[in-house]
């Protein structure tokens, strides 16, 4: 996996909450047995009209968002199925980072991304960033005022910097395990296999309860 430290690019906004994996990549594209070629199909039903041409009303089709690599969206992004195809599609479209708000619901913090989706992002070097709702609102405002504005997401420093005449920066928290993983671009399986002996000795005393 490619290592991630810092990235600068155009910010696109998608003003929808609870964007589910069926929207991110509809079922007909899950039939592929390859790991590539999903970028074209990202948000397919929203992105293209019935005639197969780009739907001009869809946010990401705005000329100002051409080549965007940072996506700002609303809460609970990536809910639904475990399909990693959704993450492949977002990443292969060209996004390097997705920003969504965490929410406060009756005193408990509700994450901005669905669990499995977020996990899958880590495995593919796609950075998910959670900001507060107020901060995400601000990002939406700035992008509306300055379409095509660029930002830097700096994972080392845990900052999102919006490049305008006067720069605006937001700090974000990140799970240290995830940070390390992304920055070093680690291969999980190779890492785990370093503990092969532990797995084997665990297996010898563990009852899997399978009777055949």
């Amino acid at each position, binding site marked *: 996996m490619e290592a991630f430290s810092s990235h600068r690019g155009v910010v696109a906004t998608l003003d929808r909450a609870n964007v589910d994996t069926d929207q991110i990549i509809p079922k007909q594209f899950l039939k592929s047995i390859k790991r590539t070629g999903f970028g074209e199909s990202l948000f397919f039903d929203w992105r293209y009209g019935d005639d197969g041409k780009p739907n001009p009303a869809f946010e990401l089709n705005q000329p100002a968002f051409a080549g965007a690599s940072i996506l700002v969206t609303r809460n609970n992004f990536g809910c639904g199925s475990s399909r990693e195809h959704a993450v492949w599609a977002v990443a292969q479209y060209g996004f390097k980072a997705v920003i969504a708000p965490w929410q406060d619901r009756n005193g408990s913090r509700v994450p901005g991304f669905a669990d499995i989706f977020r996990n899958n992002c880590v495995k593919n070097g796609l950075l998910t960033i959670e900001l507060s709702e107020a901060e995400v609102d601000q990002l939406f405002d700035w992008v509306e005022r300055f379409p095509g504005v660029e930002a830097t997401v700096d994972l080392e420093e845990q900052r999102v910097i919006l490049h305008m005449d006067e720069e605006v920066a937001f700090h974000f928290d990140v799970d240290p395990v995830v940070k390390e993983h992304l920055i070093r671009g680690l291969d999980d399986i190779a890492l785990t296999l370093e*503990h092969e002996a*532990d797995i084997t000795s665990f297996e010898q005393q563990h009852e899997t*309860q399978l009777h055949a």
Partner: protein
Amino acid sequence: MVGKTLFEKIWDKHVVKTMPDGTVLLYIDRHLVHEVTSPQAFEGLRMAKRAVRRPDLSFATMDHNVPTTTEDRMTIRDPISAAQVEALRTNCKEFGVNLYDLQSDHQGIVHIIGPEMGITVPGLTMVCGDSHTSTHGAFGTLAFGIGTSEVEHVLATQTLRQSKPKTFRVEFTGKLQKGVYSKDMILKLIGLIGTAGGTGYVIEYAGEAVRALSMEARMTICNMSIEGGARAGMIAPDDTTYEYIAAKDRPFAPKGEAFDRAVEYWRSLPSDPDAEFDRVLTIEADKIAPQVTWGTNPGMVVDVTDRVPDPHSVPGHSVKDVEQALAYMGLSPGTPMTEIPLDTIFIGSCTNARIEDLRTVSGIIKGRKKADSVRVIVVPGSQQVRKQAEAEGIDKVFIDAGAEWRHAGCSMCLGMNPDQLKPGERCASTSNRNFEGRQGKGGRTHLVSPEMAAAALLEGHFVDIRNWAA
């Protein structure tokens, strides 16, 4: 020392090693595999010249792409679907993984065949590249969905690197009213906490109303944990669980003395009385009404006696989100839920296509005809369920009522095979997701219990089944 929860007991028993960063290497007892989320994982193994560490603990079947009509089932016409199914065959053969292929008596939706064959028992860790793996938690097992990279990781190492989730106890007090079922309990919960409310938690369902449920009804609840954002849902095992496991020929379940020993262990699993949860919630089960979704996520749900809501009055959703959902669903605020006309009734999916579900529906519709306005598709969850239903004459009841009686698969739950809604078609579905386009581009889904689907099938619209005579 404070007691442990069911989840903690299972978690602790499966920790191979705690890493310096605090994550753990968790041993995985069962790995279920299907055709959609596995090909890239097998390909990854092949490229790295790695083997499947424990093929004996890995079980595969094809369910998502499979046509469900007798004519099309064995020869999949869509070449891309056919290639995906073929890839699973090749991969299972090459890597030595157990496969329940289309001609097998045990083929079916992966979450239905696991329990059916005794692959699922209490106290395990179970994963599958599928978010509804949470279903298996009904047995008191820790079961959750993973992505394809993690599928590859489990195939190669039989472990996963995990951070410990938080625990959430949901207690359903009292008894359900007549006409209200486990599907309504879980929809009610999702309506209350929202589709992200359980993110980061493992939910344990408890309380009188849960204990009273059959195993199959419990699976329905755990199945939809993910619709509430929780990767896993669990129910402590009890006599209902042990009876289910012992009841039938379940080839992989312990038998005889081994079974007795297993039960002894399983009895130690339920959460200790003084165990602490990170979050708790109590729901009065006796107050729950039959639920019907009106929107484009499972949290957009109301009592069947309610009306389509006003965009300004939906907690947890912005006005814009609700407006978008209503526009997609073709509904106007204020319309009584019971007056929405339906085109299609889908009885199927890993949520509600087990034998009890089919028995319930056929019991209600026996000797009657479907409403003229609706098309009815009944897709048993597995070939075993289909066989059992046919032995009981349930297939006849459906066919006589004017329904289509199909073979096992995911079918119109996600429309990856030819079973899809057309744009604008409105469906009462016993499945789990009402996302835009889920059952077919432009299709409109209302999630309901099998009993509500039975009533809707006869009437052509929803009814308050608590005081309705078929």
